[in-house]
């Protein structure tokens, strides 16, 4: 039997443990290399998994050989595996960047990083709602550890908010799990979808409150208005490779939203079908606008990037609310694009800050940079991509988003918000870029240079921006295939629970 | 008969626990409160043993044993805290 599905979870934890044990843990170089090599292997494995999934369709891995719905299963469909693949791509960039010296500014960087990968991959792959909680906690606790990496007041301060909010969020998650288990009697996501369809009417509203509590949990993780306030401080305080990795963290919330509200509360759910959309739609639009306002309000570049993350979250949430194949496809494409580009931007912010001396990444005139051409090119590529302008990946994403809008009202709202926010991002980024690169006070450049490993890391992530355009054809096909597959609940249920499981009356 | 006795003893112990809680609430001093808490720990052993009797099941014995062990450690820790501030020094 193939254990490829579980590899993205086990390989990182194995690596983490290996790094913590002799003989690896003695030398920083060994720790780095083991971590980097492992991440490369992870990337290869996830790509293999993606190819396999594309070829063979949805498959699942029953842990402990206990068949669903009784045991925990991992589910590989194109969407989830693509997310895992994305994570390992991002991770490779972040870990290479971290290995250029950032990792030695505190203890346990590589183990925590690998644990974080384990949590993220687990969250993407699991087909069990409680197991999702567990993996959420794994990735959260690892992120707590990583957040304070390299120390500093801002990190501690941000961490207190981040941790308390997420602890409260975990409590809500458990409340929700209690409600859903107490009414549906199962934890397997596919089985929940089956049970929701057969729900007696007196339990409907209870399930609804449980389902909507999940919305809060995921909204907090994804940073949707009004639960997004923790994000800018947290992401901008985090150590650069950590912030880069965090770029995928909000996407986990989005992914979970999508998974839960297209599968459990999907079309088969009768009165509960699409119950979250009424909330997600306005909140998503408002989140985009707030992010755009944040971009213009930001006084330093990292905050700006953090707000870009918020915009991407808002966009994705809005798409999730649309509940159509085109929208789901757009979610996947846009997620890949925005994650990699935002990750790169966090790294870039650090390099820019380092070369600008005391001014750092604050948007004030600063020292002349030592390598303005290199950093400037990277900045332009990233900025063009993130603003959704051609010829970088953002514009394909934007096209998909705009084309995904269904009704005229949706079009008017989504288009005006997305386009307006694009303009605000454009203004914000051109302002930031012109201050960072052009408002030079004094002529002396500092001694800081971009290290080869850092340049590689950044290049690796940024390369996505043009490549995703060049290969936009196959990538959009992948996205649409993933969307179709995800929305074809009947088939997935048949594969996971066997053909015997039926999902109520079909609409 | 035995069931009635058990319920009677249940009542006694519940009353004892309430008295402990009373002392815990009114204090007045911290040692008083700690003493009250320690006593509550011990009295809950009795409560759990009685549950075991009532249910005719020995499954609850470990809980009682653990309360005995852990209650002691926590009392000691709190006292140490009040004495030295630094529990582990």
């Amino acid at each position, binding site marked *: 039997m193939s254990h490829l599905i579980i590899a993205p979870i086990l390989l990182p*934890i194995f690596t983490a443990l290996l790094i913590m044990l002799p003989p690896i843990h003695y030398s920083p170089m060994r720790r780095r290399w083991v971590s980097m090599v492992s991440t490369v292997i992870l990337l290869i494995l996830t790509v293999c998994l993606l190819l396999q999934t594309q070829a063979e369709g949805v498959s699942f891995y029953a842990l402990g050989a206990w068949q669903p719905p009784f045991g925990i299963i991992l589910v590989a469909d194109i969407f989830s595996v693509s997310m895992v693949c994305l994570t390992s791509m991002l991770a490779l960039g972040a870990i290479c960047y971290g290995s250029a010296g950032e990792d030695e500014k505190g203890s346990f960087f590589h183990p925590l990083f690998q644990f974080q990968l384990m949590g993220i991959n687990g969250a993407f792959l699991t087909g069990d709602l409680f197991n999702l909680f567990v993996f959420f906690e794994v990735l959260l606790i690892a992120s707590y550890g990583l957040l304070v990496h390299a120390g500093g007041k801002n990190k501690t301060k941000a961490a207190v908010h981040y941790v308390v909010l997420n602890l409260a969020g975990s409590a809500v998650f458990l409340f929700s799990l209690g409600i859903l288990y107490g009414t549906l009697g199962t934890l397997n996501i596919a089985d929940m979808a089956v049970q929701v369809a057969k729900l007696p009417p007196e339990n409907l509203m209870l399930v609804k409150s449980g389902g909507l509590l999940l*919305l809060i949990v995921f909204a907090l993780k994804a940073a949707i208005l009004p639960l997004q306030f923790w994000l800018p401080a947290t992401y901008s305080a985090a150590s650069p490779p950590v912030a880069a990795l965090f770029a995928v963290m909000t996407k986990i919330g989005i992914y979970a939203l999508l998974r839960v509200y297209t599968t459990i509360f999907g079309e088969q759910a009768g009165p509960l079908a699409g119950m979250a959309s009424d909330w997600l739609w306005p909140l998503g639009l408002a989140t985009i606008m707030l992010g755009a306002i944040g971009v213009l309000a930001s006084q330093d570049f990292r905050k700006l990037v953090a707000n870009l993350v918020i915009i991407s979250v808002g966009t994705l949430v809005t798409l999730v609310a649309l509940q159509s194949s085109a929208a789901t496809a757009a979610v996947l494409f846009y997620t890949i694009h925005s994650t990699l580009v935002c990750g790169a931007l966090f790294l870039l912010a650090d390099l820019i800050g380092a070369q600008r001396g005391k001014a750092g990444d604050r948007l004030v005139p600063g020292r002349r940079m030592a390598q303005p051409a290199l950093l400037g090119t990277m900045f332009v590529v990233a900025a063009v991509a993130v603003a959704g302008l051609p010829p970088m990946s953002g514009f394909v994403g934007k096209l998909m988003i705009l084309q995904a809008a269904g009704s005229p009202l949706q079009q008017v709202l989504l288009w005006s918000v997305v386009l307006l926010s694009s303009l605000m991002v454009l203004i914000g980024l051109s302002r930031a870029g012109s201050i960072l690169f052009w408002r030079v006070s004094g002529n002396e450049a500092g001694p800081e240079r971009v290290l080869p490993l850092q340049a590689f890391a950044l290049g690796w992530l940024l390369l996505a921006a043009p490549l995703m355009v060049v290969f936009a054809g196959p990538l959009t096909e992948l996205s649409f295939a993933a969307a179709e597959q995800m929305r074809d609940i009947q088939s997935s249920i048949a594969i996971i629970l066997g053909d015997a499981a039926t999902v109520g009356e079909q609409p | 008969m035995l069931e009635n006795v058990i319920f009677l003893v249940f009542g006694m112990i519940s009353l004892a626990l309430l008295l402990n809680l009373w002392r815990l609430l009114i204090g007045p001093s911290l040692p008083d409160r700690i003493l009250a808490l320690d006593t509550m720990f011990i009295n809950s052993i009795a409560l759990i043993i009685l549950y075991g009797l009532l249910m005719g099941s020995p499954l609850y014995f470990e809980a009682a044993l653990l309360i005995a062990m852990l209650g002691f450690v926590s009392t000691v820790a709190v006292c140490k805290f009040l004495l030295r501030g630094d529990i582990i020094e």
Partner: protein
Amino acid sequence: MTLLWILLLPLLGSLVPVVTANWRRSACAMATAIPPAIALMILLYHSSAVFAGESLRYTLAWIPLLGLDISIRLDGLAFLFSLLILGIGLLIILYARYYLSEQDSMPRFYAYLMLFMTAMMGIVLSNNVLQLWLFWELTSISSFLLISYWWHKSEARRGARMALTVTGAGGLCLLAALLLLGQITGSYDLDVILASGAVIQQHGWYPLVLVLFLLGCFTKSAQFPFHFWLPNAMAAPTPVSAYLHSATMVKAGIFLLARFYPAMAGTDLWFLLVSITGLTTLLVGAYLALFKHDLKGLLAYSTISHLGLITLLFGMGTDLAAVAGVFHIINHATFKASLFMAAGIIDHESGSRDMRKLNGLWHFMPITATLAMVAAAAMAGVPLLNGFLSKEMFFAETLHQHLLGSLSWIIPVLATVAAIFSVAYSMRFIHDVFFNGKPKGLTKTPHEPPRYMRMPVEVLVVLCILVGVAPGYIVGDLLYAASLSVLGTAVPEYSLAIWHGLNLPLLMSVVALAGGALIYINRKHLFDFQNTLPGVDAINTFEAAMKMLAKRCQQIYSWLDNGSLQRYLVFLLMAIVVLAGLPLLQLDTLYGGRPELPVDAVNAAGAAMLLISAFATVVFHRQRVVALLMISVVGLMVSIAFTRFSAPDLALTQLSVEVVTIILLMLALFFLPHKTPKQSSPTRVIRDISLASMVGVVIGSISYAIMTRPFNTISDYFLANAKTGGGGTNVVNVILVDFRGFDTFGEIAVLGIASLGIFKLLTRIPVFKPSSDGEGRPWALERHPVLLATVSQGLLPLALMVSVFIFFRGHNLPGGGFIAGLVTAVALILQYIAHGVEWVKSRMNIEYQRVVAVGLMVALITGVASWLFNKPFLTSWFDYFDIPLLGKIELASAIAFDAGVYITVVGSTLLILASLGKMTTSHRPVHTETI
């Protein structure tokens, strides 16, 4: 395929200067010119087909799902624009070679320029509207880079940002328009869209589409009121101005008007919007141009005015007007590009562009002056030059429209007025620069430019004359082909003759020339009048607006986000109340029909104690030690509740975790204040109480509703299979280590990671040791009371024995690795408490983080071991063995897994507690080489 190369070559060309950066300047320029030159040749190769009225097409699938393909269409219009872009582009490359100084990075300039050329070629060659938009935006970006080429100059930065903002905004509007067009027509294919004019114009969205479309065009082509960015873009190097801001980019909007003419034009709305905008722009540009002292400023406003003219022509909606528009595009490109280049030469060789300083240059650079004068005359519409011809056609068309009904005469009158000003500023350009006395305050003596710097101007001026003299011969085919592709159907009869006889348009030209001269001669009065008007500085206004926008955004942001965790939490909690509470309102009754269990006095007493202690925790929360004691009772009562409701494993775990937590909190309290100051205002407290009660009510209600509902669950499977499939009778434990062992795996990972994170947090923490407790009492002197020390030593083996017992029985009875681990850990912590870190460390020197790793590794390896048997991760195995004397013994892989749990728990708990305890000792965590 060759068509694709027309597009690809400039793109490759943008890499050439990067590669050849280290070559000599001329070589670099030459190399850069090669790709566009080849492209131009390919283009010309297709000229015969295009002039014959063919549209050449090439399509390459790219993103079919989005309707975005690489689709090229070379028709007359595209050919015309390509010719301008490539031809003038080549001249600009040559010109820039001399214009740029040694300090300027020429490769960077060329790279941007070629990128821009690619973008323009992309626009004009697109046969797919999404592709068109792609290149459209690319022009904005590349022009941003070009305008800001001298980024050290503030006006360059500002001008570039302004241009980007305005054209970027327009581009987004255009995108919306194009997408809507695609939805209306069902295709993003230009062929399809252009063929669906009727469908589009009858569609309900037509007005919206048109407005968005025109916003895109007008911003790009600097139409009033979006014209302001163009003069400020003049901070760019002059080759850029000549290329982008006269010949190409600003024409992109015009191109679009022409391109979509078949699909969008012909309605009243089109006429109203386009012609009025064009007319206004024409007038405003012409008028303002006169007052600019900066040479390039004058040319910039002149450009605005001429763009308005062309827009007006397309707005009028007649076929002949469209032809005139196309013709003027050609003419304007030639004379304006040459004028800009001439201005650049003047600037380059005299050091100034200020017409108040520049005087009498005729003496210093007669050849350049002659060229400039010819070009300016063309701009003024002097006969025998190309500008005259198209202007005549324009005048004629203004006379032939009746769109404003009885007020239609206004249009020719205003056109004449604009022409008057056009003549006036052209005269100023000639007279004020080349004559009008001697130069004032120039930093260097002007002279003729290098030979090849002037050549591009010469080429263009010759073209102006040739077209002016023999229009039919020179541009006849081109104009016909271009007009054909604009109009789509047949091209109307038009004549390119120089002389049309004495007619009203000629009179208008004469009036314009005379009036222009008159105005220029009396310019002093007009200048004085203009100076009395309040000046609007576009760039400062724009910057101020942007600053204001940023400030407003900051205000909004800080109003929403005050950085207070409490506020964030309030949002979260309100979300709970709303999202979980609202559905409850739709529930008729909470009670679900399941009979309730009876309440007895003992339970009531237990509940009372739970509630009282919880309440007391809140009441005493400012006295932290007391609160801690109170919450211990809560925990105790919860454990007892678990016992009561038949969950012994839970009770055990809850108890042990609680004790460890209490110890942890006690340890922590040493480093925290012992009292919480009173801080919350009464309103805050009331708000919090109400919010808390609401959340409590919602949660409590849901809990009740669930507990009283009948229930089907998958748990029966676990009860049925625990013994047979998992080898244990304690179903909870079998679930933990087998059915849902993966959860447990994640759970111990969490514990392990937490301990690492904690170790990390405690690393290099600034240590402070309070010398007294909260009441100012000094600490007791005795560190390790004898009785405690002695007894704790004796308890250790006892506790170890108990934990071994709990560990092994877990599979069949309450217990298990986790609880056993906590018991061991607590016993060891007791040693720390009773004897101190030094004592323990001298007896047991283990790095706990390694213990954690070993524990997790054991669990991991146990799980992976099932791969050897071709079973999924964590598949359990158990069997019974008959051993002589000892009897039947069960061995199960779950025990190994549980051992991993045990080790991890011991390691993590000790790592957490001991690290914290060690903070006050010399063994505290500091970051070292080995983690």
